[in-house]
């Protein structure tokens, strides 16, 4: 079990993202790594020498981290929970962030899917407050729909109280 932020009396969120989230992040990481490698190639062509070697090392390290290590760690750390009065999120690899959004403050909620997510059958739930938006990324499409509807219902109930 990974340590995850200071212990609180508030129960920790328990739900994971969809397992396929790892694949999504690996692909995104691989794309970023590819860009870094391309940049290193450009550096080689322009400058050459020691600088280019350093560039290659950095690019390869970044590609490995972004496409292998980070997605796994990120997935293991990501937790969320929708309760009657609040949405509880815990996330982060090097810095663990815990966010609590009162249901009363949720203005609207939606789901979105980019191309990669459509291909992998994933969706992101976005809920907006006056202060900005928060996301639960990479749930399965069915679960994302349920979560969206549940948040909408709870937010409406909170409004009527």
């Amino acid at each position, binding site marked *: 079990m990974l340590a995850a932020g*200071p212990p609180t009396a508030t129960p920790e969120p328990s739900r994971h993202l969809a397992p396929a989230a790892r694949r999504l992040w690996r692909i995104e990481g691989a794309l970023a790594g590819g860009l870094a490698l391309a940049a290193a190639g450009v550096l080689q062509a322009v400058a050459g020498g020691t600088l280019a070697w350093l560039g290659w090392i950095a690019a390869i390290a970044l590609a490995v981290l972004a496409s292998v290590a980070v997605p796994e760690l990120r997935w293991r750390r990501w937790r969320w929970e929708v309760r009657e009065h609040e949405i509880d999120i815990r996330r982060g690899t090097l810095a*663990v962030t815990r*966010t609590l959004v009162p249901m009363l403050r949720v203005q609207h909620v939606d789901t979105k899917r980019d191309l990669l997510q459509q291909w992998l059958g994933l969706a992101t739930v976005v809920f907006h407050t006056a202060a900005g938006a928060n996301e639960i990324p990479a749930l399965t499409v069915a679960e994302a729909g349920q979560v969206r509807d549940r948040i909408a219902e709870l937010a409406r109930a909170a409004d009527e109280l």
Partner: protein
Amino acid sequence: MSSEPDGEAAAPGIAPRRLHPAGIAVLGVGALRGLALPLGLAFAGALLGAGGGQPLGRALAFGVLGALLASAAGVVAWLTTRWSVADGTLRLRTGVLSTKEVDVPLSRVQAVDTVHGPLQRLFGVRGVHVQTAGGGREGEITLPAVTPADVERIGAALRGRGGAPAEPAAPAAPRAERRLGRRRLLLAALTAGQVGVILPALAVVPQLLGEVWGGDLRTAGRDGLRFAPDSAPEWILAAAALIVLAWLLSAAGAVLAFAGFTVARDPDRLRVRRGLLARREATVPVARVQAVRVVEGLLRQPFGLVTVRAEVAGYAKEAAAAQTLFPLLRRTEVEPFLAALLPEMADGLGALEGPPRRALPRYVLPSAAAWLGAGAAAGVLVPALAPWALLVAIPAAALGAARWRAAGSRIADGRVAVRFRRLSRVTVLAPAARRQEHGMRQTVLQRRAGLADLELRVGAGTRGRVRHLEAVAAARAFDALRRQRRVR
């Protein structure tokens, strides 16, 4: 301002109409402002006589052309603008090539500002800015010229709206009112400058001028105006002169914005009036005020002076002046001031729990190191500055220590207070249940030291973050905030 009884009786609606004809002038001047840059360039080009001929005549021609364009734009904009109130919705239709249609349900209106600028005064009209929560700058619906009678009607329609908290039919005399006296205004103006912000920017200016000149700055200076300083003392002198200039400009800006500042409390609204050339009046329902920010600028804190700002959804992206609840108070006056005008937010400024002593290096070292790096870079770029540039690390370290001293939070009696410093020291006061979200953050390094950050968001723009608290204290605050659920 008392509303007319017959305006209350009828279902509040306003038939579609144009702006007051004075709108032509106001819109035209607005268009002229848009044209200012190209016209200014054309002017300068003409005067410098790029193409020969008679420079003055050409400049005059450009001036006339600009005036014609602006008036034409004003007339067209006026002809194509219509607004109305019907079915509880404020509507605006405007534009020729790209038409814009804005519908704002009255129940969504956060606040209404009226502007009484020089042009509007000349014609006896008002500008009206309607603010909603989603708002960008300036207000979502801007009516630059409306007759006072129509302003009254808009006000009456808003008072009769559904959804929003009911307001009494006849507002009583203001329960409390505060005026900014002349001495205070002067003091506010003199301490308005954010010198700290200007300083690093100014350091870059000579460098930029050199880039613009394209050649060697010093040669250009000797050939021309002897503008460029030769030695470090001269650089410092030049920078000091620029700082004084910037300071005077900010003082003048503060006088323009805050002259005649008055804030008054009606039963459930705040009315803020201010401005020298353009008189502005903002009406804010108290229920829309999310939090209060007490800002102690670098120039003000040593004298125990503060500015009080209100966090209102819809004003988040407005200029700082528009959010001001009072431009200048003594620190000790803040609590009585809030108790009289905005008891919903009143709270003390002291007794906050700060980060432990062992967190001090975490505040000092990163900023000192960053500025040391920046100083070294500046020294490399401008050799004359080399020995001096590294000294910026000292104020940077001092600022880090000041940030450590400033940081703190308190949750008690259903209220939350969070204090932090970027340059100015800011204390955010809010009912805990008004928060939009709150959170906690811990990096790997913080975990080893048993520290954590506490984050709080209220309203749309205020994000308070207290860094490097005891992890246990941060967790306790996190739990305590969670228990604050109901808006009282």
